[in-house]
């Protein structure tokens, strides 16, 4: 069934959108990522104009994250306090990120920067997670190995300490705010929720337990992407409600299924699956930059941009 999207001004298959929403929703629920880094390139691929894809995707992430976070609230795997601290950094970061984006667009080459950002960050994060999880799985197979003691690094030496009971942490608020800020900036530039950066940052930098990380990441993403959606809707008029509804119907159902699959998997397995997925997207984007494109030319609307 073809459906005409009023803002994107293209006609696409409604079932294709529902299916895409569903698949990305499952991944979102499983890994606590918004799924934007997968969905946005997929939307480009089916012919949605990039500006509309980025803005509408932000709206859809709100829905799937909200659906996912409710399931996590039930399991008490959301660290609200940590989420709020991250959110403060995230909102400031998003506002800075939008400014950076505007400056870069005036300079041109914003497409390239976004793609390079994707390749570099997905590559680093995916690679790190993959090898770390492999090590963790090997360790767990050797029962004689002594578990590592928690390191007391720089993160624990900073002032303004706060107790995060759900995460079982007593650390300074500075690292979470900095992490939130940094992810907020990247999220605005790359047009995603930023979960795929946030999740590893929470595990490896803040040392939060994996089970709590996903719910907390989702909680934080809801607000950052809601903020982004409003910014896009009021400045660029690029949020397509019809597209968003189709994606989020698939997305919220997928997120529910994904959350339930996620609970049944071991933390190491979850991480290794996420890392493989991140690396696959990274490889695809890197190939696009390296291989001779079949069409050297591209069209963009001029004048108003």
């Amino acid at each position, binding site marked *: *069934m*073809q*459906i*005409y999207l*009023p*803002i994107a*001004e*293209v*006609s696409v298959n409604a079932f294709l959108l529902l299916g895409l929403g569903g698949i990305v929703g499952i991944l979102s629920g499983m890994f606590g990522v918004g799924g934007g880094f997968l969905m946005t390139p997929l939307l480009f691929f089916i012919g949605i104009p990039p500006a509309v894809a980025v803005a509408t995707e932000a*709206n*859809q992430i*709100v*829905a*799937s*994250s*909200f*659906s996912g976070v*409710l*399931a996590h609230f*039930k399991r008490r795997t959301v660290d609200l306090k940590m989420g709020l601290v991250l959110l403060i950094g995230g909102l400031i970061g998003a506002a800075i990120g939008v400014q950076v984006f505007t400056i870069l667009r005036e300079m*041109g*080459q914003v*497409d*390239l920067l976004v793609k390079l950002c994707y390749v570099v960050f997905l590559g680093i994060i995916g690679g790190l997670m993959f090898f770390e999880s492999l090590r963790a799985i090997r360790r767990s197979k050797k029962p004689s190995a002594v578990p590592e003691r928690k390191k007391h690094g720089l993160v624990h030496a900073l002032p303004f300490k706060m107790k995060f009971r759900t995460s079982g942490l007593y650390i300074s608020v500075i690292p979470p705010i900095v992490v939130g800020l940094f992810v907020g900036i990247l999220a605005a530039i790359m047009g995603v929720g930023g979960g795929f950066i946030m999740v590893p940052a929470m595990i490896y930098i803040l040392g939060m337990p994996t089970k709590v990380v996903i719910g907390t990441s989702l909680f934080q993403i809801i607000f950052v992407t*809601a903020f982004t*959606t*409003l910014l*896009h*809707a*009021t400045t660029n*008029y690029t*949020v397509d*409600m*019809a597209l*968003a*509804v189709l994606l*989020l*119907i698939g997305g*919220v*159902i997928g*997120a*529910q*299924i994904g959350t*339930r699959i996620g609970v049944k998997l071991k933390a190491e397995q979850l991480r290794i699956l996420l890392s493989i997925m991140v690396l696959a997207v990274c490889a695809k984007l890197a190939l*696009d*930059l*390296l*291989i*001779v*494109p079949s*069409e*050297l*030319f*591209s*069209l*963009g*609307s*001029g*004048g108003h*941009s």
Partner: protein
Amino acid sequence: MIRALAFLLCLVVTPLAAEEVVAGLSRDEVRITANFDGSDILIYGAVKRNAPAATEPMEVIITVSGPAQTVNVRKKDWRLGIWVNTSAVEVDEAPSFYAVASSGALRDVLTRTEDLRHRISIPRAIRSVGAPSTVENAAEFTDALIRIRTAKNLYQKLDNSVKLYDQTLFSTTIDLPANLVEGPYDTRIFLVRGGVVVDDYETVINVNKVGLERWIYDLAHQQPLIYGLLSLFIAIVAGWGASAIFRYIRF
């Protein structure tokens, strides 16, 4: 003296022998609804004559042209090991949709000067004031624009698609694709003899969003904040709804 008289006679006779196009459309409005997936438009008409037809064969060219837009055509080049957009040309006026149907091969039917004057063929319908001097081979960019839009069925060159009956009646069908832009679509019909345009006729097909499409589009542009909040509201309700339903069925 005789020559001068003959010349005058010619001047008087020509307008009398003029032929006039009378045309109609199967529809002069295209309504874009939620399940819009393209539309066919039948364009038909006849030639009204005050004198017997000239000996040269009559040809008809029909063009349909969507609203003009400024388009940025960018080109990628190999730099530092990756493919990067390096140069861009702004095409000042390119129709969002353009179809040119003719009764023969357009190249044979129309002379180049007449094409230039009436801007009939696809390359002529696109107006590019000039590329920046830093860009070499600017024609490559307009060619790319035509190539990309032709692949999307947005630019159509339809040779031999106008049917002629008894040198008087004509008809053709233009297939409008699903990815249409709103606005007036100028429709022009040219009557051609010996490569020269004898008469032309212009009308407009209005392409409009209607119903839900219209409402969403207007709200997004006129009340962006409310629209944004409504989008978020839908997202939250859908997220909550799915969660509630799944809890209920205990999946």
